[in-house]
């Protein structure tokens, strides 16, 4: 198999090659490590490469493959977003604050994937503390979009998305608090799934906004996302918000039969604010699903307009509480020569956190402070319920809700960095899904001037299967997800 074919093959094919012993895990791991070595100087998608660790895991996988002890991902290489704690491997969260932090334990997601046989190639760049939609807030520099090196990959899981698009790994983990899996997946032309809140354990994921954060798979196909989710999901004693629900075999149950599936198109998503070209691509993808037996229904989410305001109170408020732990005492960055304890706190935090993180801590602290709590935090939590109830009412009429994943394609570096509000609007179609705790995915839906567009599919709580099936059917009938940037142009 030619290199490009191998590097752009879905996990489902690589598993087959491994179990047929057509290729060894060590060979496969070396191929992806080589691709990372070639492309990373240009893309900056990976902040830590774990070559020795990966080759050791791959050698172990080869032994298991030889004896027929095959777990769901035995020998399959992957990358982790650098928000997942990895035992003995530096975990930075894209921040100077944690630039030298080496966790003493693995996140549950990391240990589950490892137990399933996956090989960890390294850790992916990201917006600092997952706060951003362009990967421009990372302390380790911006990630470039492999489809156009002058454009952002999206964020915050921009390193993961760029890496998968560039053939540096067939699968990567991401996290999504307001769109951080779906928006970069859309901008990089891959498939990304944010599961239902509680579906995947948050233990060992560096916290941003605890009532919104959720981890999920990013890959080339919906089928691979189903494989990844089946391994990642499940209740965890270490996360009291993880859902005590049985985890279906999402991969085994994958079906292309979507006859009679009712897909709701919120009129608020398809109003005059939507870019005409994005509308055209999204409607073309939906027409494919209609041809496959689905029916399209206009629906109303009357309060979706309030999602941005609600999110930009709740997420910063929770972040300000979560990030209070970075005090320069127990772990993380400490300033030089503090003159007293107060100076140590102030300077360690001001020097350790970047601008966007500090801005959100300020807004969050304000929203939680005496005199403003009711007007902001409490009010936002009330509106959160109103937004969530809109979705529940809509799901009485339809099985899936569809819309764009992002308002446009990837934009040039710096285009939105000076205006925080313009950047926040990148997540206008994704935020409400986190507020309501629903599963959502982005699947490729064609191109605008050579840049990928994503279709977002939103499901009922804990019904990831239905949106995976719809995306799988779309990927059976179309080939948008098979396009990839020219890998030769990415090698430095």
């Amino acid at each position, binding site marked *: 198999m030619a290199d490009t074919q191998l590097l752009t093959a879905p996990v489902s094919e690589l598993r087959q090659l491994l179990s047929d012993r057509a290729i060894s895990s060590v060979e496969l791991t070396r191929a992806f490590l080589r691709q990372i070595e070639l492309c990373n100087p240009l893309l900056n998608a990976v902040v830590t490469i774990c070559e020795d660790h990966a080759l050791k895991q791959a050698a172990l996988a080869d032994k298991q493959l030889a004896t027929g002890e095959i777990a769901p991902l035995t020998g399959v290489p992957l990358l982790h977003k650098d928000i997942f704690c990895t035992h003995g491997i530096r975990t930075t969260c894209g921040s100077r604050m944690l630039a030298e*932090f*080496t*966790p*003493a334990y693995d996140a549950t997601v990391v240990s589950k994937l490892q137990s399933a046989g996956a090989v960890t190639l390294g850790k992916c760049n990201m917006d600092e503390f997952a706060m951003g939609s362009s990967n421009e807030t990372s302390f380790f520099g911006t990630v470039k979009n492999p489809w156009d090196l002058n454009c952002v990959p999206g964020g915050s899981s921009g390193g993961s998305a760029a890496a998968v698009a560039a053939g540096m790994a067939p699968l990567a983990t991401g996290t999504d608090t307001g769109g951080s899996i779906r928006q970069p997946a859309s901008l990089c032309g891959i498939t990304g799934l944010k599961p239902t*809140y*509680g579906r995947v354990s948050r233990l060992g994921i560096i916290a941003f906004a605890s*009532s919104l954060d959720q981890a999920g798979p990013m890959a080339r196909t919906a089928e691979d996302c189903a494989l990844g989710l089946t391994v990642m999901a499940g209740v965890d*004693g270490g996360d*009291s*918000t993880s*859902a005590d629900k049985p985890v279906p075999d999402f991969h085994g149950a994958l079906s292309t039969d979507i006859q009679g599936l009712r897909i709701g198109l919120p009129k608020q998503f398809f109003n005059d604010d939507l870019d005409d070209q994005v509308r055209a691509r999204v409607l073309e993808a939906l027409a494919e699903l209609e041809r496959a037996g689905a029916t399209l229904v206009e629906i109303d989410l009357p*309060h979706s307009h*309030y999602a*941005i*305001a609600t999110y*930009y*109170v709740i997420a910063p408020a929770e972040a*300000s509480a979560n990030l209070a732990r970075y*005090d*320069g*005492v*127990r*772990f*993380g960055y*400490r300033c030089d020569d503090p*003159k*007293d*304890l107060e*100076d*140590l*706190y*102030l*300077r360690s*935090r*001001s020097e350790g*956190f970047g601008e966007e993180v500090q*801005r959100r*801590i*300020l*807004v969050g*602290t*304000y929203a939680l402070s005496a005199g403003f709590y009711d007007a*902001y935090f*409490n*009010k*936002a*939590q*009330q*509106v*959160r*319920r*109103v937004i969530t109830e809109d979705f529940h009412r809509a799901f009485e009429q339809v099985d899936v809700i569809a819309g764009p994943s992002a308002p446009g394609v990837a934009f040039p570096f710096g285009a939105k960095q000076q205006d*925080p*509000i313009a950047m*926040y609007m990148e997540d206008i179609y994704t935020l409400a899904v986190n*507020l*309501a*705790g*629903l599963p959502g995915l982005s699947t490729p839906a064609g191109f605008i001037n050579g840049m990928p567009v994503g279709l977002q599919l939103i499901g009922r*709580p804990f019904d990831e299967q239905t949106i995976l099936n719809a995306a799988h059917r779309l990927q059976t009938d179309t080939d948008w997800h098979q396009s990839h940037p020219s890998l030769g142009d990415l090698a430095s």
Partner: protein
Amino acid sequence: MSVTPQDVEKVALLARLTISESELPEVTERFSRVLNLVDELNTIDTADIVPMSNPHDMEQRLRPDQVTRGNNREALMASAPSQEQGYFLVPKVID
């Protein structure tokens, strides 16, 4: 609603962040813009609506108070910027 530079300084102190004199006008301006965005919440009537802190209205799950993981103190202490004999070192707080 807009905030004054003094408001921003007060919140910064609560959050244990410092903002230099030169950055203060811009931080204040951006802070006000975010607050203007979220002030839109005041246009919706939420009387009698119970605030939502968990999207599934899940109750906090408790577990028996038992040790499930062994002592990992040394490995965890290894992340401290400064330590001695198992204690975190900070500048002197009492003379």
